[in-house]
């Protein structure tokens, strides 16, 4: 029994090593795990407005009304998320360069905190909704964390998913060509 106790650390290490090895496998690039929802129309949701007096974000808008016939980007963020701060200036850049509305959803974040976050850094979003309990992110988009960005085509079908912060390089080499293509 005592001997068994002394082997515990070894087993713990073995378990961790397996996780790491899986994590390193070339099939799992942490930046490019495809969500099963890519290629599907976005499931219905309604996110209440984050900014008072403006409208929130709802699936209805995406598929039919305001955005029908437009390619849109949806960005999940949170005030407690450090990479979101790093990515923040790039959102505006993406909106301008690609000529598309970027919608924001504050994920698992208190309303006040996300408002302060936008007050502090500026609001690059066309419309911002609040996903306070995180349900929209998980059920409608299957996100893996924040920041995460989705590109939806004219029909409201999810076409790309970018987990982790955007970068200049990523926008130039991958997103812009894809968006241009979808906008045709």
């Amino acid at each position, binding site marked *: 029994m*005592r*001997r068994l106790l*002394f*082997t515990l*650390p*070894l087993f713990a*290490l*073995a378990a*961790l*090593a397996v*996780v*790491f*090895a*899986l*994590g*390193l496998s*070339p099939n*799992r690039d*942490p*930046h490019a*795990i495809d969500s099963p929802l890519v290629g599907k129309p976005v499931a219905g949701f309604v996110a209440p407005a984050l900014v008072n007096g403006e409208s929130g974000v709802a699936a209805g808008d995406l598929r039919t009304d305001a955005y029908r016939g437009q390619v849109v980007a949806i960005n999940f963020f*949170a005030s*407690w*998320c*450090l*990479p979101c*701060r*790093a990515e923040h*200036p790039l959102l505006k850049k993406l909106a301008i360069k690609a000529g598309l509305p970027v919608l924001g959803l504050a994920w*698992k974040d208190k309303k006040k905190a996300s408002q*302060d976050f936008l*007050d*502090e850094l*500026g609001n690059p979003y066309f419309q911002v909704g609040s996903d306070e309990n995180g349900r929209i992110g*998980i059920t409608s988009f*299957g*996100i*893996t*964390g*924040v920041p995460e960005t989705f590109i939806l085509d004219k029909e409201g079908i999810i076409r790309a998913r970018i987990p*982790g*912060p955007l970068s*200049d390089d990523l926008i130039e080499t991958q997103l812009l060509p894809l968006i241009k293509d979808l906008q045709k």
Partner: protein
Amino acid sequence: MITELGHYALVLALVLALAQSVIPLVGAQRNLRPWMALAQPAAVGQFFLLGLSFLALVHAYVVSDFSVAAVYENSHSAQPLIYKVAAAWGNHEGSLLLWVLILGFFGALVAAFGNNLPLRLKSRVLAVQAMISTGFLVFMLLTSNPFARLGQAPLEGRQLNPMLQDPGLAFHPPMLYLGYVGLSMSFSFAIAALLEGSVDAAWARWVRPWTLLSWTTLTCGIVLGSRWAYYELGWGGWWYWDPVENASFMPWLIATALLHSAIVVEKRDSLKAWTILLAILGFAFSMLGTFLVRSGVITSVHAFAQDPARGIFILALLAIAIGGSLSLFAWRAPILKPGGFFAPISREGSLVLNNLLLAVLAATVLFGTLAPLILNVMNLGTISVGPPYFQTVFVPIAMPLVLIAAIGPFLGWKRGDLPGALQRLAAAGIAAAIAIGFAWYMADGASFMALAGMALAAWLFIGTLIEWAGRVKLGGSLGASWSRAIRLPRSAYGMTLAHAGLAVAIVGMTGSIAWKQEKVAVLHVGQSIEVGDTSYRLDDIRKVTVDNYLADRATIVASQNGQLLALLTPERRQYLVPSPPTTESAIHSNFARDVYVVVGEPDGQGGWTVRIYVEPLVLWIWLGGGLMALGGVVSLTDRRYRVGAPSKMLARKSEVAARA
């Protein structure tokens, strides 16, 4: 040419390390003195070669030899000299060389000054060290050669990341590496002890200075890193629970535990297997940190060179080193005789509780850091772990730790008198109550956590002072107290300083989290905003040119009730090499609060985004951290490490035994 010599020296160092990791070990097993004695010159030679190699690398940076790939990637001819030198270790390849150099340095220290170590133990320790250094040298030479040349030498380099061009950062990595590598020394001693099959008070005394050294430098490294993140990133805040920050924090927690458990081994000959396990885990966490930072398995803002091929190599290294040592532990540790029984309420008992809590804290941080990865690879969906998790899980476990840190020193060995200890701590209890009242009054009401934090800080600080006062019998004759005070061992002062430092740091952490204020506004020149009772006026904003960057430098006048408080000059910098603009915050700091001002983007109509943070008591965090590190330094100068009379006697005894 010099670069090639550096590369060659590295290869030679590997050859020496290989010899040093095998021959002395066999010698120790078979009792062959000349084989064991080989470890000493090999360790010194290895250090010499690594030193040469490192100097060659620094030389390439200083003369800006852009035909060397790493120099091209990380340096620029217009960079100030200090950042050219710092760039040598501000990247993946160079930092590995620094790592191995420090390893070699510590090995050489053991070889040169470890005369009171039994030959057999010493040769085993050096052999284990050499194995670690072999692993890292192979890693470097195969996957991350710092001396790799470029086919075509570019005219100009890409420069060190502007964020890293900062004096604090020049010393942050070397400090952390000193800490990580110091833990590898404790690790080598643990493995050697397992091979010997015995752990005694003398062993604990040899391990303790290394643990202390690495704890002290880790503390410095973390404090510097947090300070750097605070003033350089321009986000306010001093800790983000980022995976890379956690990677340095976990070894620190384990080193803290090891520091305390080694006392029990030294004084009471107990907790041996646990201490050995902690020594192994301390190094395991350093390796884990290396893996997390350099493999790209977890996304973090501290992007280092991320390359899965390197990740696999480090993972293999980690599995061999830590898997091997934990197997050895499972096989040999059960034969270590447990000794010295004690009651639950005793000095030992409090140290055990301290160890348990620290281990749980480390596990909490580990879980929070790895949970997204674990769930992700197991296809169990995905989560994201941020500060809310750590604040709700970590802080409540850390609180009892602070509570017992004040009580523990009052308990006797074997069996302690808890009511007696609490009686002596009555003043600390009163201080805690006063702290609650004071915080409540000053802040006009506060959350439970904020009040608890302040109360605990007061409790620990006053408790620590009472303990010191008791030792020197303050209150009796002043002369007698004075002579007691100077004769008190340095390690006792170390504890007093470190515990008091922790209390000071807690004041800062609590204050800056609980009462932070932020305000953002677009200001035109001449306009001002109010934060609390202070007003900030944007007086001027102009373009300036410095060595290797251009900047918009704002002048902001802070005034309180019409009186000038401070002139602040935050900047927005554009470095000459294409890169996004960086912000340089301006901070006005005093004991009560920091005012932290950042200028952001212009709005195009003559207005500038100005962000103002008021961070109460934040300076105390780094003061406290500094005090803790000072405690480590003072403790390191303790007489028993320099003289070590009892250990020498034991050493001779075991050497006689080895010869027999």
